């Protein structure tokens, strides 16, 4: 008797927690859902509810991207620049993050805790300060790094995300495997390339994807470091929203949402496969 009411109450509690969670998630996703919804409006304003549904704004964006007027709004160029920056940032983070993760997971050395602390620093370091300081460094040195200055900035904030994923994957690898390879005559480098890298692949790839999407959507650092020649999509969106606020912006935004959701689902799928 007692047992039954106990379970009944537990079930009710679980249902309440589930209900609250679903409502909260709905609220959290509300702005994203709203952007997608309004991009299909048939009207010319952001009036809610939309007077009708249509693809006219996607049509307009398509003509901006592919049509003869492609140069006017520079949308296609901005999209390409953002994708290039994101890809380059991922590569830099892999090159910097994988060896450092390996060192931190497998080696014990004095000051290891300090090194790990330092590598986590970009997460808590205020992005605005990083952006302003990099801008000062670049303008004082007179160097023209082009896209490079944004890539380096993004790589700094992406590095901790890369390393956490890498380190988690590398911790799961039995060191005995490497020892065995070395006993059989493999060099340290070969043991790393043939044992550690393949086994940590999921962690490295999901870290790289995460860095890619963080860079693709990043605004603050791009805001300080963009130039007339390097004009990322986030800055394009910002300028458009300040000048002409048409639902076409919502169609472009929906495009970035689709890319982001796809990458996050891919990261989740990789994590799921590892389990």
């Amino acid at each position: 008797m007692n047992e039954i009411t106990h379970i009944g109450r537990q079930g009710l509690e679980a249902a309440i927690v589930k209900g609250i969670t679903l409502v909260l998630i709905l609220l959290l996703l509300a702005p994203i859902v709203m952007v997608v919804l309004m991009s299909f409006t048939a009207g010319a304003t952001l009036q809610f509810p939309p007077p009708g549904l249509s693809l006219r704004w996607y049509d307009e964006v398509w003509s901006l991207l592919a049509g003869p007027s492609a140069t006017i709004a520079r949308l296609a160029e901005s999209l390409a620049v953002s994708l290039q920056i994101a890809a380059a940032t991922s590569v830099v983070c892999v090159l910097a993050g994988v060896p450092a993760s390996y060192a931190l997971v497998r080696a014990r050395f004095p000051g290891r805790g300090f090194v790990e602390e330092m590598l986590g620093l970009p997460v808590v370091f205020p992005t605005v300060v990083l952006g302003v300081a990099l801008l000062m460094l670049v303008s004082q040195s007179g160097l023209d790094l082009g896209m490079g200055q944004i890539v380096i900035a993004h790589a700094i904030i992406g590095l901790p995300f890369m390393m956490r994923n890498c380190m988690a994957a590398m911790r799961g690898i039995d060191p005995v495997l490497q020892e065995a390879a070395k006993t059989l005559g493999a060099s340290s480098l070969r043991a790393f390339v043939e044992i550690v890298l393949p086994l940590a692949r999921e962690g490295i790839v999901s870290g790289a994807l995460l860095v890619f999407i963080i860079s693709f959507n990043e605004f603050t650092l791009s805001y300080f470091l963009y130039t007339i020649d390097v004009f990322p999509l986030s800055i394009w969106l910002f300028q458009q929203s300040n000048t002409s606020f048409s639902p076409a912006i919502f169609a472009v935004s929906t495009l970035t949402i689709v890319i982001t959701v796809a990458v996050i689902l891919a990261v989740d799928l990789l994590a799921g496969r590892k389990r």
Partner: protein
Amino acid sequence: MSVHAAMARIGRSSAPTSGTVGSRRTGWGLALLLTPAGLLIGLLAACSLVILRLSFGTQSAEWVSWSLGAYATLLDPYYVLIIVDTVWLALLSAVITTIVAFPIALYMTRTPSAFMRRMVLVCIMLPMVVSLLVQSFGWMAILGPDGLLNRAVALATGQERIISLLFNRTGVLLGLVQTTIPLAVLPMAAALGSIPIALEEAASVLGASRLSVYRTIILPLAWPGIAAGAVLVFGFNTGAFVVPLLLGGLKVTTIAVLIRNEMGPLLNWPLGAALSAVLVVLALGIQALNRLVAPHGRHA
């Protein structure tokens, strides 16, 4: 180990590892492995030094003169108020985010469905990863004068455009909470997941009500995770820039927005640099609180 759990440990040191293959590795090899990442972090350190140097300069002679003038200016009530207000807004957002995050974290650790758990993770990650600019467009469509909320209220009450949440503090707070939910949920879920269900069962068998189970078992045991998440959100939002810039409509000024104004349009580099120095000290100082409130970090 999921990627999300891995992210939960961001900003915290981890437990010592078990295996050490590289015990014979020379110091040179180790240095080589750490060099590329070290260069990136070194640049971050160089940035801090540049800011520190600039903050002791005087306007239009930033690199050659030395002065405490910028810091003296910061003692002006106008700046003190903005600094205090920024910290207050960040603290408020941390408290609200923590409260909102609790049921989500609880659901994630208790649901028997692995699919639901993963979907919830993806859903709370999106507001953090999707461009804030894009989300601010969504907020405008919801909270704007002809937006969803005002239309709904108009339908219910017949009054037009009575709610104004956009471009004020409420809108900024909403954005701050929404974008930092995962920072609070992930450490919390890790802490909740480490509580043995047998403890709760034992308490129930001995006659404890659900409420007292929460009060005496769940909350105290999950505290390190709850505190770690709250501190992370607090520190993170102290540097808030995009949210107040886009959802505050120039009416909500945080330290970061002020830095932008001084460095950009106003060209007062020493003052902007001094504000930056204050912001860095605040953000890192708040993060150091983590050691005090959750000294063992067992949840990580």
